[in-house]
Every structure is written in structure tokens, then in C-alpha cells.
């Protein structure tokens, strides 16, 4: 969180309120000049000298959704009581931190905002499970200026060629899923069918003469895609293919949502949506930092379902899980969480790189438990395999 100090020249309440609104905006809330006026009006309508009342009034007025609602107190204290967390100057950590905040635009590198509690930097050696409130929310990345060259960099892995191929494959897939129409016909300006009911209804106003012709068509009902990609140790070799694939999927214009998981889960849709391919790859490689350990598939899926499930899943959603199914967690838990996802989503598809191997049998306990809850279990070890999925997806 950024700390804003009162500027010395701030004259009156209006000035400070404008500063507060700017402070909120800087922290990712969508407020603007109009809200400054509203906020002053709201204070006038309450006992504004009482800090608690002022806090409540501003929270009610300025928060836009549940996340703003939860963060507001902290932001309020930071501004009005200078109680924000200090940034640590130029900390030399070359680590990634996942934070419980909205994915803001990539902070300029020189603007290394810092949210960690204290000045000590040991908490930052790995993405710390301690500040894991971020699980259910969007991940925000922090990185510092110093580049660590020994770090595995996906920029090298995602060369132009494979990126293009992956995008092609993803586009084809997205197209296969996007071109869906509703079975019901709805009122439309242009359409193949006449809407007889509406015409008759309108003809009443014309004394029984059907003068106004109304039409109906079948509105598009595009499928949404939610992709959950496993980036644990055993999947490292496929990370390149899959990340490129996710990028293509997000960029295809279809409604898509992407998540990465290993022992934790994070939403990467916004990182992938970055138009600058290299920068997107950079952001991803930062996220991949600290990956490559164990896998907790059922835990990650569970967090996905509890955190994003209501928003991300509906009857028109296809859930893609890209994983090899080797996980440390309880197979039964995996079956149970998949069953819950299957109830909420239209289809659940598991893309398994191992399935491309000859003689592969899904004997891993996790896959055994998962199979009954999948609508399809398809191979995906190379870009070609991904491209070959298109006819399969048409059927879904």
C-alpha cells in the first residue's frame, strides 16, 4: 500500500479530501473527482467530527465492491492517521511477493511499493505462506530493480515462433467454443424469424393490423473458458507450452480467465492480457519464481472455488485443468472438489501432458479419483497436441 502524507500546502478539508480520493485511486479503487464532492456532501450529512462516523460514511460511499469494503479501513488509517506501512527504501530483494490487492498496473520499477510488515527482509525469501490472505483474491506482484540472472526466465522459453503457434492453437480452440448460439430465440432488430407473439401484441395498438414487424434471432452464447495451469516441479518442462497457450487463450477475444497453481493459486489473467508480449512474459516469469515445488491440486482448486468460483463459473463455462495429476494431497479431496466444480461449470476438461505418452495409464491415485468427475481427459504435451484438440472441443 502506498502511503500518502498530507502535503504541507493542503489548506482545507476539500483539499485533504481530494488527496484522500487520490490516495484511494492510487491503491486501485475506482474513484474520481465526482466522488470528492460526494464525499464532502456525505460528511455534511453526518457528524463528521466523529472519526468513526466519518469512516463509516466514506466507506459506504466510496467502496465499490466487497474487496474495497474489506480494504477500506486500512486505507483510511493510512491517510488520515498516517498509519500506513512504510516502504523500505530500496530493498535489494529480488523476490516475488504475492499480495492481497487488486492487480494494479505494473508498478514502475522505480516505484517499488512495498507492503511487507517490517523492515526486515527475511520474510521475502520465498513467497511467504504467512501472508497468504491473497489466496482468494487477485495476485499482485512486486519485484525489484535488481535482475537476478540465474533466475529461470520464461522470456527465453517463450520465443516468437512457439508463441505464435500457441496463439494459433488457442485461437482455434477459442473459436470452436465461441461460436455457440442460444437455442432460445430472442427479440432482435434483424433476424431470420418473425416474432409472431410480439407482432400480434403490437397489432393491438394498431387496431389489429400487423404494421410493425418484429424479428427474433438466436443470440450468441459464447462459452467462457477458465484455465487452471499447474506449474509445479513435475510440470516445468511443459510450462513453456502451456503459458504460451494461456496467453493465446486470453488474447483470443473470448471470455477467458487464467490461473496458475502449485501449492498456491494465483490469477494471471491480467498479467497475460498485457499487450507487450515480452513484458507479459516477464511478469509471468516473476510469478513462476518460487514455483517448481510440490503440488497441491485439490487445495488449489478448493481455493479457486471458494475465492473466485461464484464469479468465474457458470453454466456456460468450460474449465480446463492443465496438470499431470501428480500431487501430494489426498486423492479423495481432489475427487470431491472436482465434483463441486463440475456441478457449477458446464464441462470440466483435464489436459494431461502425460497422456500423450505411449502406454500411459492414469494409474496415479489422484487421476483415478479425478476421472469420474471429468467430462474429458485429453492429451496435451506439445503444441501440435493442443492444436489437435480443436475437434474434441467442438463436441463439448
Amino acid at each position: 500500500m502506498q502511503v500518502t502524507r498530507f502535503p504541507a500546502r493542503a489548506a482545507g478539508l476539500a483539499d485533504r479530501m481530494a488527496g484522500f480520493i487520490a490516495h484511494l485511486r492510487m491503491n486501485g479503487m475506482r474513484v474520481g473527482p465526482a466522488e470528492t464532492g460526494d464525499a464532502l456532501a456525505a460528511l455534511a450529512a453526518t457528524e463528521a467530527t466523529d472519526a468513526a462516523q466519518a469512516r463509516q460514511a466514506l466507506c459506504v460511499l466510496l467502496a465499490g465492491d466487497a474487496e474495497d469494503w474489506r480494504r477500506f479501513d486500512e486505507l483510511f488509517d493510512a491517510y488520515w492517521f498516517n498509519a500506513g506501512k512504510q516502504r523500505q527504501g530500496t530493498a535489494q530483494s529480488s523476490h516475488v511477493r504475492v499480495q492481497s490487492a487488486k492487480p494494479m498496473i505494473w508498478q514502475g520499477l522505480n516505484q517499488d511499493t512495498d507492503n511487507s510488515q517490517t523492515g526486515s527482509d527475511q520474510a521475502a525469501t520465498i513467497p511467504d505462506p504467512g501472508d497468504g490472505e491473497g489466496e482468494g483474491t487477485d495476485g499482485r506482484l512486486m519485484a525489484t530493480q535488481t535482475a537476478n540472472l540465474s533466475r529461470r526466465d520464461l522470456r527465453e522459453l517463450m520465443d516468437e515462433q512457439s508463441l505464435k503457434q500457441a496463439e494459433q492453437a488457442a485461437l482455434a480452440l477459442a473459436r470452436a467454443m465461441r461460436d455457440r448460439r442460444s437455442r432460445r430465440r430472442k427479440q432482435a432488430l434483424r433476424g431470420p424469424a418473425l416474432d409472431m407473439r410480439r407482432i400480434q401484441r403490437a397489432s393491438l395498438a394498431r387496431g389489429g393490423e400487423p404494421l410493425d414487424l418484429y424479428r427474433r434471432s438466436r443470440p450468441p452464447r459464447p462459452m467462457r473458458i477458465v484455465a487452471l495451469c499447474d506449474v509445479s516441479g513435475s510440470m516445468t518442462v511443459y510450462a513453456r507450452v502451456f503459458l504460451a497457450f494461456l496467453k493465446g487463450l486470453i488474447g483470443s477475444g473470448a471470455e477467458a480467465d487464467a490461473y496458475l497453481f502449485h501449492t498456491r493459486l494465483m490469477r494471471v489473467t491480467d498479467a497475460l492480457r498485457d499487450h507487450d508480449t515480452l513484458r507479459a512474459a516477464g511478469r509471468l516469469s516473476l510469478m513462476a519464481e518460487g514455483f517448481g515445488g510440490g503440488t497441491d491440486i485439490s487445495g488449489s482448486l478448493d481455493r479457486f472455488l471458494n475465492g473466485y468460483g461464484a464469479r468465474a463459473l457458470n453454466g456456460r463455462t468450460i474449465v480446463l485443468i492443465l496438470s499431470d495429476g501428480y500431487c501430494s494431497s489426498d486423492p479423495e479431496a481432489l475427487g470431491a472438489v472436482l465434483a463441486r466444480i463440475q456441478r457449477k461449470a458446464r464441462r470440466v476438461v483435464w489436459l494431461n501432458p502425460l497422456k500423450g505418452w505411449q502406454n500411459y495409464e492414469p494409474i496415479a491415485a489422484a487421476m483415478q479419483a479425478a476421472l469420474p468427475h471429468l467430462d474429458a481427459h485429453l492429451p496435451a504435451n506439445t503444441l501440435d497436441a493442443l492444436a489437435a484438440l480443436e475437434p474434441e472441443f467442438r463436441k463439448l
Partner: protein
Amino acid sequence: MEVQNGLAEQGYVADDRLAMALHLARALGRPLLLEGPAGVGKTEVAKAMAAWSETQLIRLQCYEGLDASHAIYEWNYQRQLLAIRASEADGGVGEAQLFSDEYLLKRPLLEAISQDTSPVLLIDEIDRADEEFEAYLLEILSEYQITIPELGTIKARSRPVVILTANGTRDLSDALRRRCLYSFLDYPSRETELAILRARMPEVEGLLARQIVGVVQALRSEDLEKTPGIAEMLDWAAALSGLGVNDLAQSREAVQATLVCLLKTAADYDAAPPEVMDRLIGKVA
């Protein structure tokens, strides 16, 4: 605060933030968007508000496919035709007459802005309606006026107190969120829930009330598909007191038999077998 006390008279326990939100909604004339899990009293707020301010509660239940003719107004074509037929003998009716208030069917939104005393307008589960309808609401919610081509623009005679509720079925547009005050209702704390139970059912005795609230609070932290809300808790309390239960620990059978009030899916039933309930009751007893 005034609102808080007023609602308390109606048996609704509002926390400070909600009371502030309602106060501002009245003072600034802005709609209030309430979000939160099912069964935490979002709809109930509107009812209590209407009862407290002794005005009408006008409710618009949203659903997929809701359109302007169901939500705002429609001409009563049958009556218009009848009027034409009936008056053909004596020279016909004028056009101006046909398109007058008399032949207008007012739907909830128009009804709400044409009241003399400001009513409470409840737009329930706005996230179930289509996005197009949400866009239509924007004009009404910010200007409090409705344009009918044949009649002209109808301005609100009195500003209704508008309460919108949403369950998170779909994400609402930023435009709508910006126009609304916002309040997130979560499951209440133990003390608040106890206060709610006392306010709603004074006949439930202290020990039983504490046990009921304790068990429900514990159930919420269990891994259930449908977490029981306040409404379920009140149902359960009513069922138990109807059966003459005084102490949950003494009447395990009644507890099992009345779980229908709390658990709404088969999987949740399996998740709360008698042993689990015994454990929960043992904890709070």
C-alpha cells in the same frame, strides 16, 4: 443513530456501517447496493425500512429476461381497444384520452416514482437481470425520472429510498456500482446474532438462544455447500421452540429432526451426522 434505533423497533438489528449506509441513502438520495451471502438479511432491510418510515414497500424481483414492459410501464391495449369500440357509436374517443394515465399499467419502477410520500423501492437480486436492464436502471437511479414517448418525461414526485441487493451471480457493471452507495453484509458475529434472535423471538429462553446461535455459528465454519444464514437460524429457533425444547443437549432427537431448517442439500446432511451435531452442541453447551 436514528436509523439504527428505528430499525431496532422493527426487530431488525443493523450494525453501525449498515445504519450509516441507510442514513446516507436517505440524506443524499442515492441508491444503496447491498451485497453478501444468501440469508444475511439483505431483503429484510428494505422491509424494516418501509415499516419504520411507514411507507409503502415496492418490490421488483429481477430475473433473467426481465424487460422494460415488466419493470416500468405498459399500455393497457385491451382497455384502449374496448374504449374505442364502446365509443364508436358516439363519435369516438380522442387520441389524447387514449394515451392518458387511465390506460397506463404502472409497473414497480414507475409506481415507485409516482408516489406522493417517498416509498422504499427494493430491486431484489439485480444480478439476475440482464446487463441491458442494468443499463436501463442507470437513468432511473440517477435522475429519478422515466420517459414515456406518448406522455413525456415523468419526474419523481418524491425520491424513493432505493435498495438494490445482489448475490454475486454475475459481476455488476462499474457504472451501476459508481452510482450506488455500497454495503457488504456478512454473517453476523455471535453477539449480533444473539441480539437478532432476541429481537425476533423474545420467547426463546437465554440458554436455548445461546445454544442455537453457538451451533449455527459453528456450522458456518464447517465445510458446507449452503451455509445457513440468519433466516435459517430463525426458522430453526422457531421449530425448536415450537417443539418445546429447552436445552439442545437434552433433546438430540429434536435437533436431528429439525435440521431440515438449517441444511438444504443432501451433501450437507451427510456432512452433519448426529456425531458431528453432538460435538457442536457439546462445544457450546
